């Protein structure tokens, strides 16, 4: 009786499901599926090129700022992205000398001209920050891209508004 059990256990232990053609087919299909999905979502490769840190200066223009607020931004103020909460640097200079203007049509003269508003200004705020530079992608702080033409929602200690980046340069 004991011998029969031992033999039965041995034969049970030997019986295994063999790796067969069906398994190969399934694995190939899964690998092909994975390759297609990767190519679809990562056509430029899975890995990003390495980034380099660079100190940059960028200028944001706030258009049509009411006279009561033009002095609210000061040099050395911290600059925070209102949406992502990233620290986007510190204020270097503030230029609020340009009056806000709009194109108007003079019916009598038959010409257009830029009419200045007495109590509104275009404020240029230059900010310094250490950003990541990726070749082909440009500059960013966290997920926030810094580029001319980018709309930025910025928060300062005593002011918050949206403006467009109008200039960018690398320090040093």
């Amino acid at each position, binding site marked *: 009786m004991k011998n029969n059990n031992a033999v039965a256990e041995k034969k*049970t232990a030997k019986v295994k499901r063999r790796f067969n053609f069906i398994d190969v087919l399934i694995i190939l299909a899964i690998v092909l599926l994975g390759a297609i999905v990767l190519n679809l979502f990562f056509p430029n490769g899975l890995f990003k090129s390495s980034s380099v840190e660079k100190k940059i200066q960028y200028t944001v223009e706030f258009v049509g700022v009411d006279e009561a607020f033009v002095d609210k931004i000061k040099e050395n103020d911290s600059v925070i992205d209102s949406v992502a909460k990233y620290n986007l640097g510190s204020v270097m200079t503030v230029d609020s000398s340009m009056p806000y203007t709009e194109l108007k049509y003079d019916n009598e003269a038959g010409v257009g001209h*830029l009419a200045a508003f007495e109590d509104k200004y275009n404020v240029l705020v230059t900010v310094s920050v250490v950003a990541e530079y990726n070749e082909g992608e*440009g*500059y960013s702080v966290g997920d926030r891209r810094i580029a001319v033409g980018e709309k930025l929602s910025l928060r300062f200690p005593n002011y918050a508004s949206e403006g467009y980046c109008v200039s960018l340069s690398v320090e040093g």
Partner: protein
Amino acid sequence: MAKNINKDGVAATNKKAHFNIIDAAIIILIISIVLGIVFRSHIIERLWAESKTDDYVVSFSVDNIRYTTPSYLEVGDEVYFADSGDLFGTLMSESDNVNALNITPASEFFTDANGNVVEVFYPDEESRVDTKGRIECRGYYGEDGGFSIDGRHYVAPGQSVNVKTELVTLTIRITDIVPLAK
């Protein structure tokens, strides 16, 4: 102690694996998923696209931008789709000169005292400007007649596209697509 030992000493639980309906269902499911992705994403067309891909020139315009913006664009800059980061093409010189963009004063439309629509230009090129440029890219016309860049982005005249270079983010309006003269 083994259970159900038969007269040959083999456990009754020993069963040889057979290809059954569950295996078939799994295989059919996987093949269906693969085919679904292939046809949904026009992969077959993309796989054959390389043989049809050629060099084209996409002309574009950008209206009413700040006068300083064009100075950040140079011939040879690589242009990418802003949303996906995929390569669109390379900025060429504008047709009449060696600069990247043709720049003219921007304009707005007003109604005069007689009710006529009048186009009024900004007084100089140091306020708002309109620009025109060209991008050299590789693409092809698909079977449906649409022009595709890299098989992933369909573009056509009249379409507004968000693009970016290393230093600039822009919305361009495509005005023409022609083969690159060789």
